[in-house]
């Protein structure tokens, strides 16, 4: 049974069908990329799957369980993490706190404990902070841990968002253009980290325009155009597919 299964997903806006009966299955542990021209429906698909847009038809199954139109916070708590194309951080919180927010899904501490700042609470907090610092170092933001996220550059916020998605140790990662606006050297590191996640058994579905990234790390590529799936297969096959080349690669 695939970990993520999208069956016949439909999403319409006024005058245009952004997602037109798309079927997409991702097996547990797979690393799949979703590519396609701007406006082909990739981000809309993500938004439908993760509870930001209501679907007009079709179903979404996670581990066999129907999660169609579940609200975003429920989807997150099921173990699905996502990043946003337009970078999303909490601008007034520090980089560190941005990451700590993503550990919400662990149990809430009791009210009294919070008031009295119990020892257990402090220990949990310390562990969380350590994990957050490791992730910040991973994306090269270790020295900006206390800086307000709003003061970081666009690319740095991108990296911060990537680290934040990893914080709750999700089963399925939906990454929307993680490499856009990121320095090529850091992209290499990001590629390595995604591959490491893959080796750990995590499942990754990636939207990307950076062909170096897509071709290098994907096991399978799915191509969308005008809301429809037009091709699917391993990188070698997709690279040579005429329709894909024409719609997407240009020269």
């Amino acid at each position, binding site marked *: 049974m695939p970990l993520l299964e999208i069956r016949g997903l439909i999403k319409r806006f006024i005058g*245009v069908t952004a997602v037109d009966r798309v079927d997409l299955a991702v097996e547990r542990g797979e690393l799949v990329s979703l*590519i*396609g*021209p*701007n*406006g082909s429906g990739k981000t809309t698909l993500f938004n439908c799957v993760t509870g930001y847009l209501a679907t007009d038809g079709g179903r979404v199954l996670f581990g066999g369980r129907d999660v169609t139109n579940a609200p975003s916070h429920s989807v997150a708590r099921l173990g699905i993490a996502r990043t946003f*194309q*337009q970078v999303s951080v909490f601008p007034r919180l520090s980089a560190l706190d941005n990451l700590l927010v993503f550990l919400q899904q662990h149990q809430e501490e009791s009210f009294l404990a919070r008031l009295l700042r119990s020892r257990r609470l402090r220990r949990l907090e310390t562990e969380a902070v350590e994990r957050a610092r490791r992730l910040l170092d991973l994306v*090269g933001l270790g020295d*900006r841990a206390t*800086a307000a996220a709003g*003061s*970081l*550059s*666009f*690319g*740095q916020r*991108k*990296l911060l968002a990537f680290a934040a998605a990893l914080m709750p140790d999700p089963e399925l990662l939906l990454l929307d*253009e993680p490499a*856009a*606006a*990121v*320095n*090529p*050297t*850091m*992209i*290499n590191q990001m590629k390595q980290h995604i591959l490491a996640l893959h080796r750990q058994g995590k499942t990754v579905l990636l939207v990307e*325009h950076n*062909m*170096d990234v897509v071709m290098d790390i994907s096991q399978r590529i799915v191509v969308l155009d005008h809301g429809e799936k037009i091709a699917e297969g391993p990188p070698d096959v997709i690279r040579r597919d005429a329709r894909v080349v024409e*719609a*997407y*690669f*240009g*020269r």
Partner: protein
Amino acid sequence: MAADGGALLELRGVVAGYDEVEVLRGVSLAIRTGEIVCIIGANGAGKSTLLRTVFGIVPARTGAIRFAGEEIANRPPTDVLKRGVGYVPQGRCNFPAMSVEENLEMGAYLRRDAQVRRDIAASLERFPMLAAKRRDLAGTLSGGQQQILEMAIALLLRPRLLMVDEPSLGLDPRMVEIVFDTLLAINRDGTTILMVEQNAKKALSVSHRGFVLELGRNRFEGTGRELLDNPDVRHHYLGG
């Protein structure tokens, strides 16, 4: 540091930042008329901040910024625009609820001459993909089309220098080609171009010269080819 009299834009020891954070820590560069120059560097190095400082959005604390021989540091953006510096910010920056044609009209807002109508028509002719969608709302265009629209908007003020922040951001490979071709065409028509790009290899391959910034300071400088071949640059900034 090329500080000759032929520089169209010149920065000397510019220090700038936001509130308590200092981003540019003494940057100098010079751009000659007719060039395509790109600025590359790690995230947070100050590339976008440099463009914003030249344009007057971010205050310059010290240093000189001269355009066509005149000091423009800390002048308000409308002033900088009127002197002939165009700016296309990072990401989407147009009026999504207005049509393509209306967006172009907004681009020419500061102009009062009779040529405006003709220039808008010429703009649509030059960018056929915009002409095909002239009455569509800008927000319904794809990312790449919006990027082209934004460049067209900036060009309506007939800038001598066009500053573009991350022209290829979020665009699919085909659109990236089209956008860079457009920049080359704009340059051939006589506009000097200063761009910030993370797609460094692509940018350096079309640029006459490049500057590499690191933590707010100059690190490397050279022709596009020189930087592409420089092993240090390749390792740290081009991904090897």
